[in-house]
């Protein structure tokens, strides 16, 4: 017996191990494509196969629901496949699959010259980290400083379908190595890689500086970077570096082309260190001393930075000319407490003291903003916005400044007078007093006076539109009047284009659906471009009218059924009937409460849920009472019990349906959508 148990346990254990190890599910030989030669408009997908056939790749922009585009191999059937995907967009991620394979991969085309991107420099055995690194660092390609082992093991095999991998002497590709003879994989000790606006030059040893200088001539690139070994520069020391032939070539190039500088040199074989020599940033990559590591390089037009992933350290490789950013806290404090003139003075002193040293675009913007939004001195605001754009064209405030210049310039007529008054009213008076009806009306009258005073100003239709929109919140008739005035007086203006739709919406919001439909129908003729929206609004208004009518009908039905059930002779209702109705009320109430609790998250509030439960239960109870009372009265008149019971039940059902409809109509009308009403 004991042996039998042991055998059973042994079998269970073996079965468990077999299930866990899944020996039968050994991976089938799947196609592992590689991404080669990615440019901004095309990419090459390559793979090897045991059988010979003509390769096919299906691709589409990532996230696009459009059909997959096919791309076929140019040559005939073979075991080495290269499919070129053409007609691609720059800086766009594409999803692709090879033939009938279910596995889907993605690659990204090269960015436009001015677009930012990142890439990784890695060394050592990073096979365990390569997928997480690709996921987290969003790199567009990888540079591996460790030569391929030459064995079957390829540490980049999981990421080759996504990004190209380069080595120190050119593209690193198992496909190209396998297809050696057809392809030249070694680019020698001097080669270049262009990606977006970056040109990376790989210098593998002592080389002719004239040849390096030839590689600098890059009309498109905004930045040049060098990757080289310690042997090329001698020693990692400012003096030695400045004497090296490579550095002389870089300095000479930077003098001739300061806008497209050779910004950095990555030195392989040097412990993590950095030194700036004549504006060129040299940094070491300790590929020899540390077993493995990764650096992410972020490239943008004005800035390049190296992020040492394992060391939590960043190094700026290229910076805008005015690199430090400081904010005048005192200036800001003065503005915050309303001392605008003093704040401007403080900002001006700050600018004067730090000009040329710091990036002070935020001080420019702050001054412009105070003139614009606090003091309403628009000519001065424009001056400062324009100064900001001309002196700091790459500032992150230029987008905002452009917006304000566009707005202020559009309404600069009458020497900014209507604009200043209107902005002041909106920003100060209306914001503070709109909840006081008297003050609100006074402000509206002020705007009306402004429109009267400057009827031809560019701002007049904007003010008229604003007035109509504000009236819409409190007085629909006045709003419609203002919209009509907008249509009449400024018919060609963009603000008046949708005035008729807005009139319809004003009536709709006020529950005046018939007037809304008339307005919407007129708008439909005037604005065919908005036909879909307007038709939806008309349908909604018609639906609401229908709901109102049904509610009136329900009230009539309730009155009639109650009248017949309770007022028709004999008028008395038996106490037992009332008792049983109460029982129905309690039972329904309990059941509905339980059901409602189960789906309580569907209700807008607890109150709404309780109201629905209460009125549904009441309706059920009263309809039961009506049903019984109705039957009793019919039975009293003639003895046809079946007919009486059917008629009584029908009356109860009609009362029940009307009651349910009215409950929903008054508690939350939108639930009627569930029954398509």
């Amino acid at each position, binding site marked *: 017996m004991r042996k039998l148990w*042991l055998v059973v*346990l*042994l079998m269970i*254990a073996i079965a*468990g*191990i077999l299930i*866990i*190890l899944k020996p039968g599910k050994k991976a089938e030989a*799947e196609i592992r494509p590689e991404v080669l030669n990615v440019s901004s408009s095309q990419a090459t997908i390559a793979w090897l196969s045991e059988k010979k056939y003509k390769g096919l790749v299906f691709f589409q*922009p*990532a*996230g696009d*629901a459009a059909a997959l585009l096919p791309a076929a191999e140019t040559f005939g059937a073979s075991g080495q496949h290269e499919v070129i995907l053409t007609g691609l967009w720059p*800086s*766009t991620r594409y*999803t692709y699959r090879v033939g009938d394979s279910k596995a*889907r*991969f*993605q690659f990204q085309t090269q960015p436009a010259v001015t*677009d*930012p991107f*990142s890439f990784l420099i890695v060394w050592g055995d990073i096979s*365990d980290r390569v*997928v*997480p690194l*690709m*996921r*987290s660092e*969003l790199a567009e390609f990888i540079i591996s400083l460790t030569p391929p082992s030459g064995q079957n093991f390829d540490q980049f*095999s*999981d*990421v080759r*379908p*996504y990004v190209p991998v380069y080595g120190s002497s050119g593209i690193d590709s198992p496909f190209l190595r396998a297809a050696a003879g057809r392809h030249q994989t070694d680019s020698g000790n001097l080669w270049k890689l262009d990606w977006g606006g970056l040109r990376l030059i790989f210098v593998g040893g002592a080389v002719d500086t004239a040849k390096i200088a030839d590689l600098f001539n890059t009309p498109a690139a905004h930045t040049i970077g060098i990757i080289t070994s310690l042997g090329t520069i001698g020693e990692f020391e400012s003096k030695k570096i400045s004497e090296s032939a490579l550095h002389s070539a870089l300095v000479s190039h930077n003098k001739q082309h300061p806008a497209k500088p050779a910004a950095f040199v990555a030195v392989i074989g040097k412990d993590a260190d950095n030194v700036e020599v004549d504006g060129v940033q040299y940094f070491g990559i300790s590929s020899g001393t540390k077993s493995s590591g990764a650096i992410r390089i*972020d490239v*943008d037009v*004005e800035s390049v930075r190296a992020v040492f992933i394992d060391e939590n350290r960043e190094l700026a490789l290229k910076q805008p000319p005015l690199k430090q950013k400081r904010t005048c806290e005192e200036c800001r404090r003065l503005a915050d407490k309303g001392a605008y003139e003093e704040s401007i003075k403080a900002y001006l002193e700050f600018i004067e003291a730090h000009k040329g040293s710091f990036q002070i675009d935020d001080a420019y913007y702050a001054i412009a*903003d105070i003139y*614009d*939004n606090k003091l309403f001195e628009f000519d001065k605001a424009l001056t400062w916005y324009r100064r900001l754009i001309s002196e700091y064209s*790459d500032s*992150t*405030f230029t*987008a*905002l400044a452009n*917006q*304000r210049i566009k*707005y202020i310039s559009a309404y600069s007529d009458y020497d900014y007078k209507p604009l200043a008054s209107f*902005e002041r009213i*909106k920003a100060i008076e*209306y*914001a503070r007093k*709109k909840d006081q009806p008297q003050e609100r009306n006074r402000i509206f009258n002020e705007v009306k006076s402004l429109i009267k005073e400057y009827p031809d100003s560019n701002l007049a239709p904007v003010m008229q539109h*604003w007035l109509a*929109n*504000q009236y819409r*919140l409190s007085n629909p008739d006045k709003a419609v009047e203002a919209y009509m005035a907008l249509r009449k007086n400024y018919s060609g203006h963009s603000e008046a284009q949708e005035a008729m739709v807005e009139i319809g919406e004003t009536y709709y919001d006020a529950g005046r659906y018939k007037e809304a439909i008339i307005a919407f129908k007129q708008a439909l003729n005037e604005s065919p471009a908005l036909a879909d929206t307007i038709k939806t609004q008309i349908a909604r208004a018609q639906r609401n009218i229908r709901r109102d009518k049904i509610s009136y009908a329900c009230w009539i039905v309730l009155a009639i059924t109650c009248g017949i059930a309770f007022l028709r002779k004999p008028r008395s209702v038996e106490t037992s009937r009332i008792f049983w109705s109460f029982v129905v009320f309690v039972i329904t109430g309990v059941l509905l409460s339980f059901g409602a609790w189960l789906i309580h*998250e569907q209700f*807008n*509030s607890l109150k709404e849920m309780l109201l629905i439960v209460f009125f549904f239960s009441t309706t059920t109870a009263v309809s039961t009472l009506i049903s019984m009372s109705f039957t009793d009265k019919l039975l009293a008149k003639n003895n046809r019990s079946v007919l009486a019971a059917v008629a009584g039940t029908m009356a109860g059902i009609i009362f029940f349906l009307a009651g349910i409809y009215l409950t929903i109509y008054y508690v939350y009308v939108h639930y009627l959508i569930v029954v398509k009403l």
Partner: protein
Amino acid sequence: MKNLLYVIIFSALISNCFASLDSDKKQNVPQPPVVKQYVNACLEIERIRANKNPDSNAINAQYEITLPVVKYIDSVCAANYDKEIRDALKKLAAGEKPEINGQIIGKGFQNVTVLAIRQELNLMAADPNNIKPCAERIAAYFEGIRPTFIRRDKGFFEGKKTLEASADAALEQLSKADKTSLLTASRELEDVIARTYALSVLYEMQEIEKSRDSDLKFCDVKRVEAGIFYRIIMPRIEKRSPKINQTLLNLINGSYGAIDSKEIEKYLAAGLAINLRQS
């Protein structure tokens, strides 16, 4: 001897069974039941918050349920959501800026949920044995942010299930992924999350454009919402281009009169390298 053999076999079996769970436990990764409780509590808080007078005691009670996930995210992402949400809860209970503090709580959970999804994607990428359990947890977390996807579909794609369907497709791919196809599935999920929250930022800015002439209080609330939504996608934009990130921060925090949603959309698309309106 036989007994020793049995002991070895069973030890091997048990250690195999728990091997995949081991790495999770070491990091105190919230398991599916905890995630589901967290998601339900988040949705319940949103429901309570939608009332005119939200019951802060009820929100506090639900918040306690969310704590394991919030604290886990605080620890693995070096964040401070527990403190931020508690501060907002206190202010809400005191009636201080209820609209704004309510948003900080509600949208704060969306931040935590997205960070939790990202953390699960990291765990997946780090160890292929984690793919299945992580995919299950991601699917559970996603339910917490699904309402946002539905709302954005309604607002930007006329109710057609564009974002929601993309997210569901990505979740399905993720559950089937292996080590090599994992990158595609995880990128697709990250992309649709980024798109949804970029559109959420855009939506709030459009609301400001509509109301800037009439309701500044409403604009203040919308700006806070936009800021919290932006925080979800900011790391990706900042990594791609610190300049675009700074420009977007300036645009979101600029004066209401200077806000231009079209300009913001342009920068959001450039910062994420995604077509936001792709249907």
